[in-house]
C-alpha cells in the first residue's frame, strides 16, 4: 500500500495533523503516535532519517519546529518518501507563503485537502504543485 500514515508533530510532541491510510483504533493511534514521536524526537541531525518501528518504517524530516513523519511499508523507497515530504512542504509553502505551525493548525482542513490531492489510499496520485493546488484555488476564488 505504500504510505500508511502521515503525521505532523511539533517539537513538544503535540500532533498537528494526522492522516491514516489504514484503520487503527483511537487507543492504537495514541500509542503509536506516542512511541514514534518519542523515538524520532530523541534523534539528532547526525542520525539518518529512517526509524524502524514494529513492522514498518518511519521516514521523518524536520522543518524548523515541525516534524513530518511518514509511516511506510518495509519495501517502500525511503529516499522517495523524503522527497515526498519535501514536496508536501513546498506545496504548503506555495499556498500559505512561508508556512508555519499556526497556518497548519488554523487551516487544518486545507492541509487535508492538499494531502488528499497528493495521496489516495496510501498511493501517490499527483506530484505537480500546480495540479494539487488547483481545486483549492478554485474554491478560494469562487467564494
Amino acid at each position, binding site marked *: *500500500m505504500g504510505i500508511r500514515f502521515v503525521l505532523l508533530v511539533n517539537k513538544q510532541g503535540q*500532533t*498537528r*495533523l*494526522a*492522516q491514516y*491510510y489504514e*484503520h487503527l*483504533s*483511537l487507543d492504537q*493511534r*495514541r500509542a503509536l*503516535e506516542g512511541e514514534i514521536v518519542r523515538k524520532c524526537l530523541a*534523534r539528532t541531525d*547526525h*542520525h*539518518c*532519517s*529512517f*526509524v*524502524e518501528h514494529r513492522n514498518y518504517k518511519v521516514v521523518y524530516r524536520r522543518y524548523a519546529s515541525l516534524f513530518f513523519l511518514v509511516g511506510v511499508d518495509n519495501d517502500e*523507497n*525511503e*529516499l*522517495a518518501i*523524503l*522527497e*515526498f515530504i519535501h*514536496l508536501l512542504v513546498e506545496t504548503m509553502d506555495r499556498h500559505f507563503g512561508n508556512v508555519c505551525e499556526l497556518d497548519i*493548525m*488554523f*487551516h*487544518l*482542513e*486545507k492541509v*487535508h*485537502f492538499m494531502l*488528499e490531492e497528493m495521496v*489516495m*489510499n496510501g*498511493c*501517490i*496520485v*499527483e*506530484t*505537480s*504543485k*500546480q*495540479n494539487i493546488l488547483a*481545486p483549492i484555488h*478554485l*474554491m*478560494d476564488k*469562487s*467564494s
Partner: protein
Amino acid sequence: MDTVEKIVEDFASDIAMSPFSSGTRLRDMIRAIRACKTAAEERAVVRRECAEIRAAISEGGGEGIRHRNMAKLMFIHMLGYPTHFGQMECLKLIAAAGYPEKRVGYLGLMLLLDERQEVLMLVTNSLKQDLNHSNQFIVGLALCALGNICSAEMARDLSPEVERLMRSREVNTKKKAALCSVRIVRKVPDLAENFMGLASSLLKEKHHGILISAVQLCTELCKASKDALEYLRKNCIDGLVRILRDVSNSSYAPEYDVAGISDPFLHIRVLKLMHILGQGDADCSEYMNDILAQVATKTESNKNAANAILYECVQTIMGIEATSGLRVLAINILGRFLSNRDNNIRYVALNMLMRAITVDTQAVQRHRTTILECVKDADASIRKRALGLVFLLVNDTNVKPLTKELIDYLDLADPDFKEDLTAKICSIVERFSQEKLWYIDQMIKVLSLAGNHVKDDVWHALVVVISNASELQGYSVRSLYRSLQAFVDQGSLIRVAVWCIGEYGEMLVNNVGMLQLEEPITVTESDAVDAVQLALNRYSTDVTTRAMCLVALLKLSSRFPSTSERIKQIVSKNKENIVLELQQRSIEFSSIIQRHQSIRPSLLERMPALDEASYLVKRASTAQATLAADKPAPTVSPGGLKLPNGAPSSASTDILIDLLSIGSSPSQNGAPAADLSPPAQLGAVVPEATDLLSSLSSSTSVSGTKSAPAVQDMDLLDGLTSNTSVSGHDNYLSITAFQSATLKINFGFKKQPGKPQETTILATFTNLTSSSYTDFVFQAAVPKFIQLRLDPASGNIVPASGDGSVTQGFNVTNNQHGQKPLAMRIRMSYKVNDWNKAKSAIFLPGYSADRTRSLNTHIPKAIDRVRRRGEDRHIGERRQGEERGAATAESEERRAAAAAATESVERRAGRTMTGEE
C-alpha cells in the same frame, strides 16, 4: 462556492441569528485548546466542546452549524479524542447539494470513520449519486472517498461506475478512478480482469498524474492475479519502457522538476513495476536491460531525488534476470552509496546489500570491512541494518575474524544494542563453531561481557557442551573461574561458572587436563568455596543463581572434605530465607552434610554427560511449542509459584534446571547411563526423599510414570486412531486438563476416523468449593497452525461442591499434524459471591515428534512435584498452630494446585502446567 475558512468565519454572524448559538467559533476553540497549560485543562475544553456539538446534533442544527461542527470535530479527532458521534453528521453533509458542504463531509468521513459497516452502507448510495454527478470536482471527491474507505461490498457495487469513469475525458477523474480501482482490486481480487485492459491503455496517456496512477494500478493487478501479471507482461512492457525513456530524456518541465530530475516519483513507480514484471521472466528482463542501463548511468548521484531513482534502479536490477554487465553496474553504485558520508544513503545501501546478498554474495563480501564499521555506527538504525547484514555474511571461512570483531565491539556497545548484538553473536558462534575449544572460548567471552543479555537456552547449551567435552572440562572451569574474578556482575556467567565449579571443582584446584596454551593458576579448595560464596551473597544475584550456588556448595562439600564444616555454615545461613526454594534447599542440604556423610559421595557424584543431540532436538521443539506470549517472565517473586527449578508454573522444559535440582539425566538419556549405577544416581537425585520426607518414595513414582499405557494418550492426541483403544466413536478418552483446589477441568477426546488432524474435545468443569460459580466463561487460545471452534457451553453457572457440572464442546484442527503438537492456552473466568476470579493454564498434551523422549521428560517433573508435595507437608507442619491469614490461604491453594498437577502427571495424562492469576 465558499471556502471552508470563510464559512467558519461567517458563522460569527450566523450565530447571532441561529437559535443554537451556544457554540464558539472554530478559531476560538483552537485558541482555547492552545491556551491550556495541562492535559486536564485540555480535556475539559474538549469535553465542553463535544457536549455542545452533541447538543447541536441532537437538535438538528442548520447547514452552517453542521459545517462548523465538523471542522471542530476533525480538530478534536486529531488530538486523539473519540468523535464517533459525528459520523452521521458527515453523511448529512455529503447528502447536501453544495460543494463546500460535500468537501467537508467527505473529509470528515475519511477521518472519522471507524469501519462500522452500517455507516458504510448508508454512504454507498450517496457515493453512487456523486459518482454520476455532472461536476467533475464532486466526482473527484466521491472517487477519493471511495478509494480511501471502501469495503469489499462497496467495491463490488460501485466498480462499474469506476470503470466507466476511467474512460472519462477529464484528467482528474481519470487519475482518481485509476487509483480508486487499486483499492477495489485489493478488496476484491476477482475484479482484476475487468481492469487489466483499461490499466494498460492508460499507460499511453501523457499526463503524469494519470501515468503514476496507472502504473500503481498495474502493480496492484500483478499482485492480485497471475492472469493479470501475464497479460501485463505481454502488453505493457513497451509502454513502461517508453514512459521511462520520455521522462528521463525530457527537457525541463517545471511542474514535475525536482532538483533537475524530471518527476522522480514516476521514475520510481515505473521501476518498481518493472521489478515485478521482470522477476523470473527472462524475455521481459532482456527488454528492459537497455533502459535500466541508461537510467543507472545517466542519473547523477548528487541529489536526494537522483539517489532515490538509483536506489530503485539497483533494486530492480537485482530483482530481475539482468545481464551480468548490468549487475556489475548495480554493485558499483552500491559501493558508491556505501562510502557516502550521508547517513541516509548509507542506510539505504545496507538495505540494498541485504537483497543483493542472495544474488551475488562475493560482491557483498568485498564490502565486509565497511559493513563492520557500520555495526559500530552511532546511529541505531544503521547499526541494526549492518548487524543483520553481517549475520548473513558469516560463513565457515570468515567466522573467526568476524566473531572477534563483534565480540570486541560488545564491550563498547551501548546497552540497548547489546541485547541484539549478543543474540546474533551467540547464534553465529553456535552455527559455525568447528571445534569445541573455540566455541567454549567465545561463549565465555560473551558471558563475561554481556552475561546479563544472554538467553537461558544459550548458556544451557554451553553447559551441555562442557559436560560432554571431558578433555576440556578442566580448561573450562579454570577459564570460568578467571572470568568470574574479573566480571562479577554478569548473571549467566555466574550461573555457568558456579555450575562448573560445583561439578569440576577438583579439576580447578588440581589443574587437571591442562592445555598447552593455558597458563597455570593456583586455586586452593577454599578459594573455590570463596568464589561460590561470593556469588551467593552478592546482592544482585537472583533466586535461580542462588539455588545453583547452594547445589554447587553441596557438591564441593563432598569433593573437598576439608571445607565441609565451612560449607555447612554457609548453607545453613539460608535456612530462614523467605524464598521457599532457598529455604528448602538450605535445610535439606544441611541435613545431608550433617547426617548422611556415608552416602554423600555417591549422592553427589558428577553429573553424567547430557546427550547433545537430544538436547538440541528438545531445544528446538521447546522453542516451537512455547507460545511467545506464554514465556515466563524472568522475575521471580519471593514465595511465588514461579520457582526456578522447573516448578509447575514454568512453561519451558528446561532440562538443565531439572538437572540441577534433581538429576533427570538417566531418564533424559533414555537408557540409564552405562558408567553409573542407576540406584546410586536415583539416590543422588532425590536426597530429601531419603531422609526428610521418608514417607514418599520417589522410585515408585518414577516407575509409575514409565509404565506403558502412557503412550496411548499421546497417540490419541497426535492422531493414531485406528489401532488404539478408541474404536468406538462416541468414546471420549478423558484426562484432567486443569485442577486446582477450587476448579477441575476434564477434557474428553474424540477423533473422527480418517481425519487425524481433527480432534473433538468435550470439556467438563467441576466446582470443588462450597459456593457456586456464576458467569462462568471458558476461553481457549491456540497457535496459528491450529484452528479452534468453540461450541456454546451447557450453562454459565457451575454448581457448588461438584454437584453437577458444566460442559462445553470444542473442535481443534491441527494443520501441522504430525509436525507440531497440540498446544492451547485456556482461561476460565467466573464470579464467586460477586468476586471476579480468573484462572489460566497452558495445555500441551505431548510431542508427536519423539514420543518416548517427550514421555521421559515427564519423569523428572513427576519427581520434582513429588518433592514439592513433600515440601508442602514440611511447611504445613512448621506452620501448625499459626494463624493463617488470607495470603497464606492463597498460597496454600497454589500449592494444592501444584500437588494436583502432580497427580495428573502421575496419571500419565500428558503434561499440564498450571498458573493462576
